[in-house]
């Protein structure tokens, strides 16, 4: 008995020091395990992002500090305001359609018997799996001015052929269409996963109470999926707003800069036009929307974490 007590006291006395050593070792080990990640992120993401802000304050030959002159120059150009308008139009319209189509398709897949769901889901995700540069080439060929296979169908059913990439309105329509085609499957997968987690009893109870499908969506599905919907929409907004591949391959910004978004215009100015500071200034305009969306996403993610 006496022995037991002393041994207990002994271990209690020893514990703080060993614990401290142990913790210290653990945190150092942990730090070194995360070090490659920290170096990568600092050297190749944070540093370039800050460097971009510095670049934006230089003149074209990058010898002289010009302050905000690049931005003043941009504000005076009509093309810049066109790019702002087109970027917003492109991102907002595309995300709305992607979310709406994804939401609808998720419901349709969820409605059919469980046996066939895998097959349909697998088929509908294919646009997302193909590298966008490759599938956009396919669309480019579908939109071809002389051999457009879409126009061939249109003429067959008695409609006028469309000048897909040559007419400003249709060119804008086309880049959004391709973006929706590419991105909607992502929403489908996310919403389908979220739908599966909504308890089936809720819908059954609502059916017995005589709720129609619209009421079920409005009063059950939407509230239950609110969080996932906001996260996917914000996330997609960032990705769509900074899109490059589709616009670059489909129209290269044409006709007459009408379909340029920030990324493609920055590429034209910075890499092809050799005016790196001006290109950097243009690409920096993606930051505000990015920051705002990121704040809301983080809030959503944290809320989710607290609920769980």
């Amino acid at each position, binding site marked *: 008995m006496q022995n037991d007590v002393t041994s207990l006291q002994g271990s209690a006395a020893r514990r703080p020091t060993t614990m401290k050593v142990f913790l210290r070792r*653990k*945190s150092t*080990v942990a*730090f070194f*395990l*995360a070090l*490659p*990640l920290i170096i*990568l*992120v600092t050297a190749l*993401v944070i*540093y370039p*992002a800050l*460097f*971009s802000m510095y*670049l934006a304050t230089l003149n074209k030959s*990058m010898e002289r500090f010009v302050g905000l002159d690049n931005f003043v120059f941009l504000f005076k150009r009509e093309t810049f305001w066109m790019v702002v308008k087109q970027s917003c139009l492109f991102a907002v319209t595309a995300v709305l359609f992607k979310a709406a*189509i994804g939401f609808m*398709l998720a419901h*349709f*897949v969820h409605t*059919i018997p469980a046996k066939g769901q895998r097959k349909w889901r697998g088929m*509908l*995700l*294919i*646009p997302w*799996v193909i*590298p*966008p*540069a*490759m*599938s956009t*080439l*396919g669309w480019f*060929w*579908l939109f071809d001015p002389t*051999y457009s296979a879409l126009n*061939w169908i249109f003429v067959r059913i008695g409609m006028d052929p469309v000048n897909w990439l040559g007419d400003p309105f249709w060119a804008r329509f086309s880049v959004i269409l391709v973006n929706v085609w590419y991105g*909607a499957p*992502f929403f489908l*997968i*996310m919403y389908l996963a979220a739908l599966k987690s909504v308890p089936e009893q809720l819908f059954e109870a609502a059916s017995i109470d005589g709720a129609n*499908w619209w009421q079920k969506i409005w009063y059950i599905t939407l509230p239950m999926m609110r969080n996932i919907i906001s996260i996917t929409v914000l996330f997609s907004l960032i990705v769509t707003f*900074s899109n*490059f591949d589709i616009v670059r391959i489909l129209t290269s910004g044409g006709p007459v800069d009408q379909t340029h978004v920030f*990324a493609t215009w*920055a*590429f034209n100015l910075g*890499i092809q036009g050799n005016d*790196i500071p001006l290109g*950097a200034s243009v*690409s920096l305009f993606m*930051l505000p929307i*990015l920051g705002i969306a*990121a704040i809301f*996403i*983080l809030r959503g*993610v944290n*809320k*989710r974490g607290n609920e769980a």
Partner: protein
Amino acid sequence: MSQHSIAANSSVVPVQRSMQRSRRWALLWSYFFLVLFSIFFLMPPLYMLITSLKDSGEISAVTNPWWVNRPTFDNYLALFRSNDYLTFFRNSSVIAVIVVIVTMLISIPAAFSLSRMKFWGSTTLATGVFLTYLVPDTLLFIPLFKIFAFINQLTGIELINHWWALIIIYPTLTVPFATWILIAYFASIPKELDEAALIDGAGYFQMLTKIFIPVAIPGIIAAMIFAFTVAWSQFLYPLAFTTSTDQLVLPVGIVTTLIKGDVYNWGQIMAGALLGAAPPLVIYAFLMDYYIAGLTAGATKG
């Protein structure tokens, strides 16, 4: 009594019948729209396949574009014999495989550290990792271009127009999300397991290799698939940083070299694009569940 039960029945049966009927309508509409959207979603790849099986004569003749009259594999054979195309394919494959390995070497220890072992600032770092994932490549390519030029001035190492330089910058696109997926998987492993391992005298390295990696294999596969598809389909960085034909990767190579001036060889372009899309599609076909798990992991676990 009997009247009562009849009344009850007559009110239940119509409800059931109407529910059955509405269920049938819901099914019908669901299938209708699923077929409609499947046509829309599969139309471009299908048309690419149709075009890739035609020779130039049939493409330029005004026939039904949706039908192949004289199917031929010439376009594919021409690509297999083309040195340029094989170089693109090799560059893309080597880059993608190395990027997957590098991503795993960075992400697995980092995710282990951030999900299980705390150190000063580790929670902030976890949030920061997620934020870096949101920083798009379109914001970074211009400063990176300039940084590469500086490195050349300082050390004489030329990073512009070398395909291997892409291996250095691709991990910035893959590591944050891969780490994010893995943190979610590691966090779901019960704490009792690592306590048991610690009691048995296992070190951190053994804990990682003997417990965390084997248990989180599905998450690791999902992260690898993600890293591979990102590295394979990246378009902006190679377009900005590489120009010589022998340094290009697939997406850029097809867009810039097969489209020569105004002479488009559409059959060959479509064959090249389809072959370029094949590796991700094959991976998807065989590992669909892992692919989808990786997609949803980012949002389902915060």
